[in-house]
């Protein structure tokens, strides 16, 4: 009994009890944070009310009253502010989407070239990386835009490629695929063709595994898909057609057009990010155990096969997390297009503020969009990472 009593007495007093201290500390911390947040909110409302405005998002429904140079969505100055913001967000996402694809391809090439046995190729890749990584992205983007793209021929003497595609300092225009009457039917056929091609693929693989005959899977499946697509096109009769751009006096009409601003930001971000991705690819390839390559050699795989079937899949696992970071950087760097006047989030937001005020509300939208898309990219890449990761809890 007495020992229990002493134990009781030995319990530290409340102000020295770690469990109590932890809770008190957190409550104190939260109180401070809440106090600071409240103070900030009061500051903001005070400043806004001093200017005779109020903190509200209602203005997003009002007519925007300004045009946007280029947009994927339909847009005119008569549409509300939120539509303008949506246009800006899709523009930025378009840059990021195309940029990520191109930067990945170029980065992969650079990374492999860095490790080539060919001295010249290796040196060129190294110089590329060392130059690009140490010059600010913005300087590069401005350079591509003003010194390269705006310096190419004016629209009146556009460089024409077989009269179906044009390049000038007003941008580039290439033929567009436009849907005819039965476009959706044709797409359904192609979808069916995809399924058929998949079955053919499986069958050829099985034959190959059973007999060892060459499978020619790509030829077979590709042939099936192209065949169904062609037959569909002939049977349906003009399911789609090509719209060739027209060379106007001041601007192109028809076709798919790429503005000089879009080209500038895309070129700049692709070249910049590819240097970083290249270094990641190089590091991941070097991280693959040497025995893997030697085993592939021992199996008699050709050098291309060694790289494609053995080394790259394993390098991919190491590379995915770092490459995800580069994708996030690329997405955030689309904001640099602001400086060359491409209508992305910052550009449109500043116009919106000039037109209708509401700086803070606008800022919160910008923050939300950047964080939201970043989150989406992370989620997609995490899923991808889980798909390529080794199974079995290693």
């Amino acid at each position, binding site marked *: 009994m007495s020992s229990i009593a002493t134990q009781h007495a030995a319990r530290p007093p409340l102000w020295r009890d770690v469990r109590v201290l932890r809770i008190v500390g957190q409550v104190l911390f939260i109180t401070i944070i809440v106090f600071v947040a409240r103070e900030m909110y009061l500051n903001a409302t005070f400043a806004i009310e001093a200017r005779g405005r109020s903190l509200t998002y209602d203005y997003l429904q009002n007519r925007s009253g300004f045009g946007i140079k280029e947009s994927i969505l339909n847009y005119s100055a008569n549409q509300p502010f939120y539509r303008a913001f949506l246009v800006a967000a899709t523009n930025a996402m378009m840059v990021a989407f195309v940029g990520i694809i191109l930067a990945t391809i170029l980065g992969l090439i650079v990374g492999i070239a860095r490790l080539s046995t060919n001295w010249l190729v290796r040196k060129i890749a190294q110089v590329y990386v060392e130059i690009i990584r140490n010059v600010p992205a913005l300087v590069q983007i401005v350079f591509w835009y*003003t010194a390269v793209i705006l*310096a190419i021929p004016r629209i009146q003497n556009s460089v024409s490629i077989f009269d179906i595609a044009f390049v000038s300092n007003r941008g580039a225009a290439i033929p567009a695929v436009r849907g005819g009457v039965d476009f959706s039917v044709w797409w359904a056929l192609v979808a069916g063709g995809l399924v058929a091609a998949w079955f053919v693929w499986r069958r050829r693989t099985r034959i190959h595994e059973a007999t060892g005959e060459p499978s020619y899977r790509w030829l077979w499946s590709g042939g099936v898909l192209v065949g169904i697509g062609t037959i569909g096109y002939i049977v349906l009769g003009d399911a789609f057609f090509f719209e060739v751009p027209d060379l106007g006096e001041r601007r192109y009409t028809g076709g798919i057009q790429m503005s000089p601003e879009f080209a500038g930001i895309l070129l700049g971000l692709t070249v910049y990010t590819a240097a970083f991705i290249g270094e990641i690819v190089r590091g991941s390839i070097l991280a693959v155990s040497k025995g893997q390559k030697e085993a592939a050699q021992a199996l008699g795989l050709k050098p291309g096969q060694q790289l494609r079937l053995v*080394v790259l899949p394993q390098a991919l696992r190491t590379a995915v997390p770092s490459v995800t970071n580069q994708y996030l950087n690329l997405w*955030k760097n689309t904001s640099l297009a602001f400086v060359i006047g491409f209508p992305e989030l910052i550009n449109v937001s*500043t116009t919106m503020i000039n037109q209708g005020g509401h700086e803070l509300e606008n800022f919160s939208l910008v923050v939300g969009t950047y964080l939201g898309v970043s989150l989406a990219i992370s989620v997609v890449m995490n899923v991808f990472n889980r798909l390529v990761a080794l199974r079995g809890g290693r």
Partner: protein
Amino acid sequence: MADDPRRRRPFGFEEDLGVAVTEDAPAVEAAPLSTPATPTEWIRQNLFSSWFNTILTLVAGAFLLFVLYSLINFTFVSADWAVVQRFMKAYMAGPFPIEEVWRIWVCFYAVALLAGLSLGSSRWRPRVTTRTVLVTAVSSGAASAIVLYTVRTALVLSLTAGIVIVAAAGTVVGRALGNRLRKPLLAAWFLLFPIMLVVVRAFDGVAPRFWGGLFFNLIAATVGIVASFPIGLLLALGRKSSLPAVRIVCVVIIEVFRGVPLIAWLIFSRFVVDLFLPPQMEVPNIIKAFIAMTMFSSAYVAEIVRGGLQGVDPGQLEAGRALGLSPLRLTALIVMPQALRSTIPPMIGHFISLFKDTSLFSAIAVTELLSAARRSSASLEFFGLDAETLLFAALIFWVIAFSMSRWSQRLEHRLGVGER
């Protein structure tokens, strides 16, 4: 060294040196690499070892020749570098009043002197190989040629030469004094930035809105690092805290500041920073931008410090606890010294990217190096010379960022980070 072709042949496009393995031959372990004896042999192995490699060499060679030809043709024939000569002061100092430029020179001399003393007292000796001698000769030759061509007044030329002389003299003195300089030098480096601010601002000095050119880029990057370090440290500790409330708040702050691009912070700093400040407090826009950049940078610093914290051996913590250290002293005396040591190279990397990011200040009408370049080629006299001005700005950015990243690599090697 990493470019030794023999250490770098894992994934080429051709067969590695085919070693014939006959039935009776012993297992080949680490096939001996034949060192190329003659230049022709080297060329054959590195450029023309297979038909695919030959094609690659031809294509790459053609590409290289094209790029070199365009570059040389541009540099020496078609470019008009008069614009760079004319706007040199704007590139270096922006709208800094010309009669006050001596303040910038004082700062540069101070940095050169300290750098020289540090280099000397570290007893660093250059490795003398054909390669390093060649690289040093070519790069210093190119640098002098550019300076001689672009700087047009004797005064500025002699001042520039003076920087080199001061740095060299510092190296000699530093070598003579050696380790005795260690502590004073450390103190001097810490005091350097405040002293520089005093030199620029004191006695009717120059307000931040007149700072510009390369000087601004360097100052802004330094402000970003120095000011964000304590905040980043606290955020990192908060993120590693065992108290969930503290942890969550810190994670949210870090992710929000990192997740939004710097250019957005800079542009919106005019409106947003007011939130943090008491009402009616008048702050110049450029200071608001500095505050926004500091917050952005501190999120990155926090992640760097977190990496350092994670690198500390848990045994160190346990040992500290076993000694009965309080959490505060444990952090200050055991964890931090070890964690911060390993953060030095990534902090230099962060400084480099922050230095590159200061070009974004051109979006908020600061005449830093990039916008000075853009303005000079928009002037009536030199309209349209964008390639010249932008390439020159890119060259300056490159020289500084590249040499710093090389220095950081060497430091990483010397600190033995990751090899302890």
